[in-house]
């Protein structure tokens, strides 16, 4: 990760920027990360619980944070901006959620309590859409002149 940032520094013009966009860990507990499971009904989001990522992913996020901290310490970049935002993925039904988790997010599980909660919400609002809401961070690092 540090090597990738050193390469970015080499190919950037002086004053150029790195935009580092990636999943953010739970602000309350930096050793875990939850993805919110929601249903959207009548223009509103209703929470149905959480999906949890494995520690393998968390290690990657910690490694990326450390790499950014290191290049800032080295004086190669300065942190110009950092912000959090929610990013949602929509699913047609629960089967699609399961397929997506199996193929795309192999380290993420849908706990039974969340599954039951989603099923309850979908029985109540049959045309509601299911979504996974991920907390993301954008860091903007500027290469020194």
């Amino acid at each position, binding site marked *: 990760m540090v090597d990738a940032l050193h390469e*970015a520094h080499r190919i950037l013009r002086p004053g150029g920027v790195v935009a580092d966009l990636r999943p953010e860990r739970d602000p309350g507990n930096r050793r875990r990360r939850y993805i919110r499971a929601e249903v959207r009904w009548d223009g509103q989001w209703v929470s149905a619980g959480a999906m949890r990522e494995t520690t393998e992913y968390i290690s990657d996020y910690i490694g990326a944070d450390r790499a950014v901290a290191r290049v800032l310490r080295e004086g190669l970049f300065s942190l110009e901006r950092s912000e959090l935002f929610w990013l949602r993925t929509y699913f047609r039904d629960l089967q699609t959620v399961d397929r997506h988790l199996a193929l795309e997010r192999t380290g993420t599980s849908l706990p039974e309590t969340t599954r039951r909660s989603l099923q309850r919400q979908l029985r109540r609002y049959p045309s509601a859409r299911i979504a996974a809401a991920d907390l993301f961070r954008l860091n903007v690092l500027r290469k020194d002149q």
Partner: protein
Amino acid sequence: MIRMRGVRFDPERAEVRVLLRSAPLRGARLLDVGCGDGRLTRRIKGAPRSVVGVDPDPDQIARARAFTSRLLRRRVRYEVGAAEALPFGRHSFDVVLFSWSL
């Protein structure tokens, strides 16, 4: 990310809006590191002057090229390469984007 029926990724375009608001993409020479099949590369194509997507997986790069229209290929191109040894010279870009790839 694999395209899957019944899945819509970020239809609100939150990712693109945050990038356009907070990173100086307009008129820039942009490198998208770990671009995969070029999903985000294509979404932000309107702002930068030119975009290069790079990914170590040749299959992903082939998909990215296939998804890119002939018209767009004037400004957007894709190359196979690793983030730790980028196949570009010094000072070649204004913005380097790591999207889920750092």
